[in-house]
């Protein structure tokens, strides 16, 4: 089956929010703080502008609380008396002419009495920079398994390491954009998004409106990667506020500069490892400290931290594990969701550290991993017993075979000993990724989805999950078509509109195919139950038409709710239990060439082997893996967010380099398919997994090629030069 919207996308027919013409629309823009922290003293409107032509919105125009409803509601929709980061929104303007808007924005002077700010998340905050709680800590998370201190004392060796990872920009193809309008008293927003019901909740809260007085509609969305998980709530509120005051539709489109400067990025992180190992390479204690830079507001940092902490100990069995995690405030533009959601940061540290341990013990890094990989019946750091039948050793071995690890090692050794300045080696990373929300998250979401039998004999899928390039639309259709054995063209997918689709949860956390897809399968069952039998194919359609003939004018809606798989229990206080319904497992191998003259790293080959449960669509699944690896290559080697006073200075695509097709060799993708009983057709989550593995595999390869011990990404030539200089 072809991608459902492929032709529309290829021909440019797909209507993104920028393409949707709206009669009488005005343009909106945001006036932002130029300083990282301070008290707003005065706002001056330049005399050169006729302000009567403009609609101006400030915090006093909010009908409800001045809060972006998220985890802690600490972020204002518009700053009132203080700002906490550069680019913080203070005022909104609307005008029919976009150029006049630019001139007007320049004519506004926000005078701020600056206060001491903090930008380095790694140092304890001086007293005059404390802005949250007593210590700027947004969230603490702790995992305790066994007796780490005793095990460290008893261990033959203790290996320590500190690893740092940088921020990353999502670079979705389509910038953020939203239009707001009021229709029949209903405040409506339409635009680019991953989570319509997050926006719905944010609008209800800050606009003080009832459920049916706000409406959220998704327009075609050109990529998200988490960047359209939390931030669109802010943008939707801005568009809605302007529309309410202007009494007409108002559209806000960020250009690339504004989008990169003002919206969220991946959390920078520092992870410390202290690992006790026996002389034979058995890991007996893991003592891990995870620190995230949260930026100026809480946003999603607590849950990013949570996922990071749970993934920090890697796919290994160890009886004694302690992970202490903190996310702290800095006066940086808030960090937010990004593919992997904390796991890439901690997995980078864990997998680099595994190679360092192997080095210290004089062991082969493959042997060390084989010895410690979780086996069925053993448990993760949270005590979740893994019993999924996946052959994790075989996944590792397959990657080793496909990457010709041993043959290449010999060939590279010969090459490296003769070549004057090029050095080659293969690195690997073994990892896992929990699919779906963490802990009790899925239960808390209480997702609902509908499968509707239409009077035409067709079936309609109603969920709040969005197509954003990943292929959700096609996958959903495929799941229902195969379940009911009907042709895909007999299946419609309802527009994602909160007036028409139930809340099936956000399009995040690698949950869409696995969890919502499973809801759709159950919805098909429920629909058939109403039709009085386990119908499929033509028989199903006949029964559906018969039902409508017997119930003229009625709708046949089968709605199902999420039910946690049996045995999934989570203690959020003690961080114990089943952190995820299931994990996807993988080993990636990178073959690199390092140029000792330029310290540039070239990727020669990449092998990605994973078990993601049943593969629902080979092309889309391989696309997810290849895309995730490329995003990981960028994060590992070139994507460097350069911060000045907590704001990204290189906020455009000439100065923030992402990989081009020439920078990445063909990514060789291999799937193992051990079905997961509670995912659609046996599928597990796939979207985020590939983001986790590229960086550690590549940096491990660089370490093996050079003999240096790089512990930082992005590992730009400048950073590698410094590392090698001190080696």
């Amino acid at each position: 089956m072809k991608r459902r919207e492929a032709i529309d996308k290829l021909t440019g027919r797909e209507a993104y929010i920028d393409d949707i013409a709206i009669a009488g629309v005005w343009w909106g823009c945001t006036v932002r703080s130029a300083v990282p922290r301070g008290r707003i003293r005065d706002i001056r409107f330049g005399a050169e502008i006729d302000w009567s032509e403009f609609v101006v919105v400030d915090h006093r125009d909010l009908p409800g609380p001045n809060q972006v409803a998220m985890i802690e509601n600490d972020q204002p929709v518009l700053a009132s008396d203080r700002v906490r980061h550069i680019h913080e929104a203070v005022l909104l303007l609307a005008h029919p002419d976009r150029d006049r808007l630019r001139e007007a924005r320049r004519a506004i002077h926000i005078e701020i009495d600056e206060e001491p700010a903090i930008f380095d998340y790694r140092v304890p905050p001086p007293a005059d920079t404390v802005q949250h709680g007593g210590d700027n800590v947004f969230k603490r998370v702790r995992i305790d398994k066994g007796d780490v201190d005793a095990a460290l004392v008893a261990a033959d060796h203790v290996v320590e390491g500190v690893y740092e990872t940088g921020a990353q920009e999502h670079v979705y193809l389509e910038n953020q954009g939203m239009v707001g309008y009021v229709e029949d008293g209903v405040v409506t927003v339409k635009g680019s998004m991953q989570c319509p019901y997050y926006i719905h909740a944010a609008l209800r809260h800050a606009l003080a409106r009832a459920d049916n007085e706000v409406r959220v509609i998704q327009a075609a969305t050109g990529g998200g990667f988490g960047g359209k998980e939390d931030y669109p709530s802010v943008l939707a509120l801005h568009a809605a506020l302007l529309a309410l005051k202007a009494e007409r539709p108002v559209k806000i489109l960020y250009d690339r500069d504004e989008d990169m400067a003002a919206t969220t990025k991946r959390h920078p992180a520092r992870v410390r490892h202290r690992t006790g190992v026996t002389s034979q390479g058995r890991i007996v204690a893991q003592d891990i400290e995870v620190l995230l830079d949260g930026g100026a507001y809480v946003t999603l940092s607590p849950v990013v931290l949570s996922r990071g902490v749970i993934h920090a100990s890697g796919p290994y069995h160890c009886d004694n594990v302690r992970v202490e995690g903190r996310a702290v405030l800095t006066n940086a533009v808030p960090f937010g969701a990004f593919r992997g959601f904390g796991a890439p940061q901690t997995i980078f540290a864990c997998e680099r550290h595994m190679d360092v341990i192997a080095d210290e013990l004089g062991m082969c890094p493959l042997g060390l991993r084989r010895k410690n990989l979780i086996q069925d019946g053993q448990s993760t750091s949270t005590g979740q017993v893994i019993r999924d039948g996946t052959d994790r050793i075989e996944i590792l071995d397959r990657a080793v075979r496909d990457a010709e690890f041993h043959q290449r090692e010999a060939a590279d050794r010969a090459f490296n000993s003769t070549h004057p300045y090029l050095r080659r080696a293969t690195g690997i990373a073994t990892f896992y990724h929990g699919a779906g929300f963490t802990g009790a998250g899925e239960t808390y979401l209480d997702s609902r989805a509908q499968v509707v039998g239409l009077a035409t004999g067709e079936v309609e899928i109603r969920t709040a999950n969005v197509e954003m390039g990943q292929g959700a639309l096609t996958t959903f259709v495929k799941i229902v078509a195969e379940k009911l054995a009907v042709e895909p063209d007999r299946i419609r997918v309802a527009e994602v509109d909160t007036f028409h689709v139930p809340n099936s949860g956000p399009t995040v956390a690698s949950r869409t195919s696995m969890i919502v897809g499973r809801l759709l399968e159950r919805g098909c069952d429920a629909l058939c139950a109403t039709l009085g039998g386990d119908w499929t194919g033509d028989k199903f359609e006949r029964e559906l038409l018969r039902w409508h003939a017997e119930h003229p004018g009625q709708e046949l809606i089968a709605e199902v709710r999420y039910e946690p798989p049996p045995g999934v229990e989570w203690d959020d206080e003690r961080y114990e239990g089943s952190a995820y319904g299931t994990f996807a497992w993988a080993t990636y191998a990178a073959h690199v060439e390092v140029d000792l003259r330029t310290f540039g790293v070239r990727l020669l080959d990449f092998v990605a082997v994973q078990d993601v449960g049943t593969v629902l669509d080979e092309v889309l699944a391989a696309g997810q893996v290849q895309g995730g690896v490329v995003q990981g290559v960028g994060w590992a080697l070139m994507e460097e967010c350069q911060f000045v006073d907590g704001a990204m200075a290189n906020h455009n695509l000439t100065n923030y380099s992402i990989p081009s097709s020439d920078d990445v060799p063909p990514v060789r993708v291999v799937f193992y398919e051990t079905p997961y009983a509670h995912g659609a057709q046996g599928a597990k989550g796939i979207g985020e997994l590939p983001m986790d593995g590229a960086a550690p595999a590549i940096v491990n390869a660089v370490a093996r090629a050079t003999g240096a011990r790089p512990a930082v990404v992005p590992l730009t030539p400048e950073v590698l030069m410094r590392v090698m200089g001190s080696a």
Partner: protein
Amino acid sequence: MRRFQVAMPKSVPGAVAASGDDFDETKFLAGGTDLLAEIKDHTQFPDVLVNLKSIPGLKEIKVSDSGVEIGALVTLSELASHKEIKRSWPALVEAIGHAASPQIRNVGTVGGNLCQRVRCWYYRHDEYPCLKKGGQICYAQQGENEYHSVFGNRICAAPHPSSTAPVLIAYGAQVEIHGPEGARTIDLEDFFHSPEDDVTQENILTSKEVVTKITLDRANTSKHSAYCEARERDAFDWSLCGATVNLQMDGDSVKRARVVLSAIAPTPVRRKDLEKVLVESGVGSGALEKIAKLSIRGARPLEQNEYKLTLVKAMLKRAILKAVKG
């Protein structure tokens, strides 16, 4: 993006007639890959775009015994895939292969490539009223200048990004320019001018003049010609430093040489001093070292771009060795 009008002249004199007295008023539009981006970035605000694509005859490549005439509107892709160009001017094909991305080369024209504006994030950002935009200072001098010029950078440090211009200069190309007084032809080498001449423009064109043709003479080409450049990323990236070498060889000796450096100064830079060494001393390793050393004489690296001096030497040596090999 500010609104503008588009004029669709049917002839070159018509285009000249449609053009205004200054650059804020009218701009000539060819492929638009640079100009439209500038308009979208709010760094150019022309009232009228004079669209050259409506003029017939500017897209032809005419091959003759003496050389080739390239219409200014020939796209970079068309030029690089032309059989005769591939055969006789190989370094030009090499240089085009490095320019931007295939999508941009399919639209961008050779005339536009010569007339494109500089690479400089201050120039390209509307919040920085730099010298080029009529302002008072060059922000790069004390600012983020990693990618800027290391030669001729005292007034404006923005490097000229064209990778075809240095090669065309090395091949002795001439450009035909049309203006109110009719047509004239000049050496491409004399087409560019430095910030000292006029910091707001990179070439001698007035707002009423347009490039219509580029001419290459067979007498000036050689199989011993090569272009090398360094970039941060393998594709779709700017040149950090380019070196073009065009040698007329007789056995091991160099009879005539042209050497042009690019992306390291506000214009492509022909280096007659290096050409002289090549002719006098040849291409042995001693000569190469001498040339490399000489190549960075007079350079004035800024705080963050001293590395470009290393690149100048390396690219130059690579280009010479490649050219000698033929």
